């Protein structure tokens, strides 16, 4: 008679294994093996659902943009019309606002990349862990503070009675208006976007082998030539990715123009807000919102076509 394996032998399997077995059986019931080829779709289903909800919202906005406001009832008129789009196109104000948004986004990208590149380069190349941590801390401390709070910070710092004017007063300079202008809005946007740009640039710079730069130097290139002919071209995916993210965020920004612009430097998002919430004209607000979506999409499409998707392509084909 042989010894039969009793209950004790089952304990050879750790508890964790048995839990996992149970979970696998449960998953097999919920998601049979025959459906395994669809597992990938299952995993991206939540993301697809989110996109579908966004598309549905966009569709409703598009529908809303085709009705003018009936001011006798403050309800959208029943008739379908392109009148709201005509209003946008015929308005010198809106065209000015569109132009200001585009130029503001462009300048923000230029200045942000100019500042972010050396910062990210130093972050990646420094041999000192202390310096790297210090750079990260300096970069991320303002990142944890909301955009509105940061804008208020600039109101305090740059105001007529602010820190900067106080400092200027010490050397005999009379207080000057530093706030409520287009340059101030761009300044605020650059400061806000800097961490985003550094975060997107750093991986691209990390991927450039230091030996490549050393090799260029050993062949006689000075640092400027190395930067221009080696580092910048190899960092292009990072620059494109960072530029795109900064451009789209700046183009659609609301808080900085509202708070640092003194009411006269509106971007498109501010105009959309005015129509939705100030004049209750949701049709016109919807038309402006779609113009903003179209501008952003065209901008991104043009950059993709000209330079590829950069780091946003995640290593895939252009």
């Amino acid at each position, binding site marked *: 008679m042989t010894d039969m394996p009793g209950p004790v032998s089952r304990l050879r399997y750790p508890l964790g294994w048995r839990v996992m077995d149970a979970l696998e059986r449960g998953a097999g019931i919920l998601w049979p093996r025959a459906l395994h080829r669809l597992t990938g779709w299952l995993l991206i289903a939540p993301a697809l659902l989110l996109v579908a909800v966004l598309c549905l919202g966009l569709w409703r906005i598009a529908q809303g943009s085709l009705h003018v*406001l009936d*001011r*006798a*009832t*403050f*309800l959208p008129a029943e008739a379908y019309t392109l009148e709201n789009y005509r209003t946008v196109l015929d*308005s*010198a*104000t809106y065209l*000015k*606002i569109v132009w200001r948004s585009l130029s503001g986004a462009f300048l923000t990208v230029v200045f942000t990349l100019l500042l972010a590149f050396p910062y990210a380069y130093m972050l990646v190349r420094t041999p000192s862990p202390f310096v790297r941590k210090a750079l990260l801390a300096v970069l991320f401390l303002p990142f944890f503070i909301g955009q509105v709070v940061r804008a208020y910070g600039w*109101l305090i710092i740059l*105001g*007529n*009675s*602010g820190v900067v004017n106080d400092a200027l007063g010490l050397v005999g300079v009379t*207080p000057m*208006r530093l*706030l*409520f202008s287009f340059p101030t809005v761009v300044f605020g946007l650059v400061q806000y976007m800097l961490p985003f740009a550094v975060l997107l640039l750093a991986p691209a710079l990390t991927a450039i082998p230091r030996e490549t730069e050393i090799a260029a130097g050993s062949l006689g290139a000075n640092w400027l030539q190395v930067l221009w002919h080696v580092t910048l071209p190899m960092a292009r995916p990072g620059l494109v990715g960072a530029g795109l993210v900064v451009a789209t965020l700046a183009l659609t920004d609301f808080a900085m123009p509202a708070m640092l612009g*003194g*009411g*006269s430097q*509106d971007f498109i998002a501010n105009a959309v807000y*005015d129509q*939705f*919430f*100030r*004049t*209750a*004209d*949701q049709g016109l607000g919807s038309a402006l919102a779609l113009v903003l979506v179209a501008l952003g999409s065209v901008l991104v499409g043009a950059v993709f076509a000209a330079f590829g998707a950069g780091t946003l392509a995640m290593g895939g084909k252009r």
Partner: protein
Amino acid sequence: MKIHDTGVSRRAILRAGAAAGGTALLGTLPATRLWAQEPQKPAELIVRAWGGEWVEALKRGVSDPFTKATGIAIRHDLTEDNEIQPKVWAAVAQNRVPPIHINWDTTTNATKSALRGVTEDLSDLSNLAGTSELSKPVGLDGYPIVNTYGYVYVLAYRPEAFPDGPPKSWKDLLDPRFKGRIALYNDGIGFHFPAQLAGGGTLADIPANMEPCWEFCRKIKEQSPLLGEDPDFTAWFQNDEIDAACTISTNALAAKRNGVPIAWTVPAEGCKFDTDGLWIPKGLPENELYWAKQYINFAITPEAQQVWLDGLGLPGVVPGLTPPEGLAGDPSYPTKPEDFEHLIRVSAKVQVENESDWFARFKEIMQG
């Protein structure tokens, strides 16, 4: 008072309401006796309000005494009036319970909601009998809104910037020394009508011909004005960013009470006079609607008005209120017929129908 297309006489505005029975005080009667047979009380009512000094005054004058009398807690929702509007409209359109019970709103904004049909009728409030005609919204049937006080968009200024005395005309703001030192609301509200007169136009031309207004706005634009909202004005005065602003007198008063050196005046062309009110969105359960109405009914008692409007420094809709200290005879606190002579009132209907165009035109000039 310059009244344009309102159908309301100065005398009528100031006439005392009758029916003393309607002014019975909620706060002086025991809650259990007063509402022994009333519908079930909700745990709380949500009242949308403006923040800062505005909500503090409402709390002292209306909300706290109402809670004391009824046991119903009042939650103040500080969502901006313009932002709550589409939420309420959407809730009513979708047959949902609205996000607030009572909306403290400008009469112009509230009129839009009334025209859209999302407001409950408040004609059955007993205390309306004790109010002046100012409480009645002009151009609307019944009481979809109850106006609760009036206010003036004064010309507030820093006395040290005007050493020769208060500005006598809105045109004084065109002095080059005020370049970059004046402020207006970012949609121009409160400024359009005096600008119409300062630009050489007449009130009778509103809304058909507002070109004098826009011409004056273009001149003001050359002065690089700052454009903002209520809280901005106090901050700008406090931080020495501006010397003068067209703002509601309450904001100027709040700044003064906070130690900011500020005064205000009604220039020769006059100032816009308008009203705010309370209304209830449709879609509330019956018992909550009942208690929301009681809240508004209480807000128009003399006792509630006295404390609430002492805080705001504004004239109410109940006759016989005592002006807050220092405001008796002040141009921002009109009570007598002669006080209204330099104030401009345009009907909510005209404003509602044309406001979007005026805002757009003002923006067009100021965004240049």
